[in-house]
């Protein structure tokens, strides 16, 4: 993990000496030890998502033909001398799209949609997967056999195409998107949780609880669940990035988040037609996806290395 942060491209100014960090090495060591950069990026994104109304300078859906395909704000030449650009009252920070909608505002609102969909799906999927994994591992027998087979079959389904079928038969919507992502998430957890439960089940303290007369439900809740929380945390944090990518892919294909709600995948798709004259429409939402997914993955790696001693030994 620490080595990966190095490749993150941040080079703290080693000559800088502050009263807080007496030695320049301390800052560097702190950054290597703790996932500072991913957390800062994620905190910023969460901030954008929470306060989207206040941060975004324009309404994300208001069309303004005057600023059709307006260039990003740093293009002084465009805003000062261009025949069209000089008439735009307010510069668009990251430009505007074909309908004159402000790209920055849309990216900010897209953060809200992408993050909330992924987090809700991740939490629900983890709960469902944990439940299924604990049940299969704990009870075993025919239930276990059936569930394991079912998980195998589920994994063999082409997810993206099933999502296409769903968009025809059931329709599109944020809720449908979340359900689809939950469907994708939970199976991935069952096998791992099951394996962990199988080993926890034979521990002495579980047998002791059983001898003391604890019910199955109590054992599962009080003795097994605490034993797998680390695993759940690691699996969930490693999966969020994938969920964000999947949501963006589906929205890009026009079968995910409905087009009236700004989403990163949908925006990238919006910019496809005007790629030769307005790269910024597709570029910035992609940058948002990249930052989020990378931070999530780094954070997940860090949590894994921190919480699971076995995996830490295997660490490369």
């Amino acid at each position, binding site marked *: 993990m620490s080595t990966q942060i190095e490749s993150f491209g941040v080079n703290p100014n080693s000559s800088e000496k502050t009263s807080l960090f007496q030695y320049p090495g301390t800052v560097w060591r702190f950054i290597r030890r703790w996932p500072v950069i991913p957390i800062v990026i994620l905190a910023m994104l969460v901030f954008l998502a929470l306060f989207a109304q206040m941060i975004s300078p324009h309404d994300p859906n208001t069309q303004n033909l005057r600023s059709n395909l307006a260039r990003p704000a740093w293009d002084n030449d465009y805003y000062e001398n261009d025949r069209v650009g000089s008439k735009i009252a307010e510069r668009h920070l990251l430009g505007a799209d074909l309908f004159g909608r402000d790209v920055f505002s849309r990216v900010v609102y897209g953060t809200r949609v992408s993050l909330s969909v992924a987090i809700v799906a991740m939490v629900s999927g983890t709960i469902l997967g944990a439940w299924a994994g604990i049940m299969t591992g704990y009870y075993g027998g025919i239930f276990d056999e059936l569930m394991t087979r079912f998980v195998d079959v589920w994994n063999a389904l082409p997810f*993206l195409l099933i999502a296409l079928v769903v968009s*025809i038969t059931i329709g599109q919507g944020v809720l449908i998107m979340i359900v689809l992502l939950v469907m994708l998430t939970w199976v991935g957890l069952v096998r791992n949780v099951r394996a962990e439960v199988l080993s926890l089940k034979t521990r002495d303290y579980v047998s002791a609880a059983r001898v003391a007369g604890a019910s199955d439900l109590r054992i599962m809740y009080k003795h097994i669940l605490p034993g797998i929380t680390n695993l759940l945390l690691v699996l969930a944090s490693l999966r969020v990035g994938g969920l964000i990518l999947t949501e963006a892919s589906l929205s890009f294909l026009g079968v995910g988040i409905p087009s009236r709600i700004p989403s990163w995948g949908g925006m990238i798709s919006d910019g496809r037609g005007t790629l030769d004259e307005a790269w910024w429409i597709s570029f910035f939402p992609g940058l948002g996806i990249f930052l989020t997914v990378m931070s999530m993955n780094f954070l997940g790696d860090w949590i894994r290395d921190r919480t699971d001693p076995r995996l830490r030994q295997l660490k490369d």
Partner: protein
Amino acid sequence: MKNFLARRLIFSVLSLFIASMAVFGLAHAKEDPINLFIQPGYFVSPETLEALKAKWGLDKPLALQYLTWAGNMLRGDLGESVQQQRPVTTIIGEKWGATFQLAIAAWIFGTITGIPLGVVSALQRGKFTDYLARGVALIGQTLPAFWIGLVGIWIFAVYLGWLPVFGRGAGLPFFEQAKHYVLPVLVLGWGPMAGYMRITRSAMLEVLDSEYVKLARAKGVANRSVIWKHAFRNALIQPLTIATLLLAGFMDGAVLVEVIFAWPGVGRVAVEAVNQNDFMLITGTVFIFTFLYLVMSLVADLLYTVADPRIRLS
């Protein structure tokens, strides 16, 4: 071995059955499935509706409908596209070659770059080459393929003008046609390459640390021989196991890449079918993809047992 094969085969058939149930169930999930065959915005009189229902067999009991439908599937009849009024199998048959070529090219690209990159990265662990290889893999796993594709088009096709923007370039001379493959193959192969690289790297690191490699070194076996004969052969088993995972990635990736590059393949057919509400065409595509995926994962599993005899015993 025979036992394993039989179990695996039964399991594949079962998977296909459940997949068919899922798709059939989805068709009846929300409303009367006849609405799936009528284009939205058209008025259809009740009599015509009844006649259409009778034509598609939608007036019969649900179980019978499923059996008829599944029976047709088994006989290779995937129904008729509502939009194009042609059998689904014909439409997919026309487009199949393009998808297959793209997937094979991307697979070759992913394998011949990913595995060596993983080996080099493991051998050069902690050095510049290692970071470089891991950075390349990181990009493949964190950036959405469709975005890489668009940025690639923007840089190489629009800005620099080196490569064509879209299509397959059918009928052009070989070199010109090859240019059409560069971007789609890179975009589709990048994810699998990253997967191969990461798995090979960790497998190599693990094997290089093992007793038998240490023994070989202690015996004084040449370094090259240790790496390629002792370590690499054993490390290769793990990349083989993710072949099935990668196949799933190709299926999803093919849809996206074909849409971005207007590649005339099955994935694009599926997305167009969605836009045109062509229900039969989309279910047919899902079927063929699921079927292929199951066949390929069966093959991959068999290859895996051949490569590693230890699997057969357990």
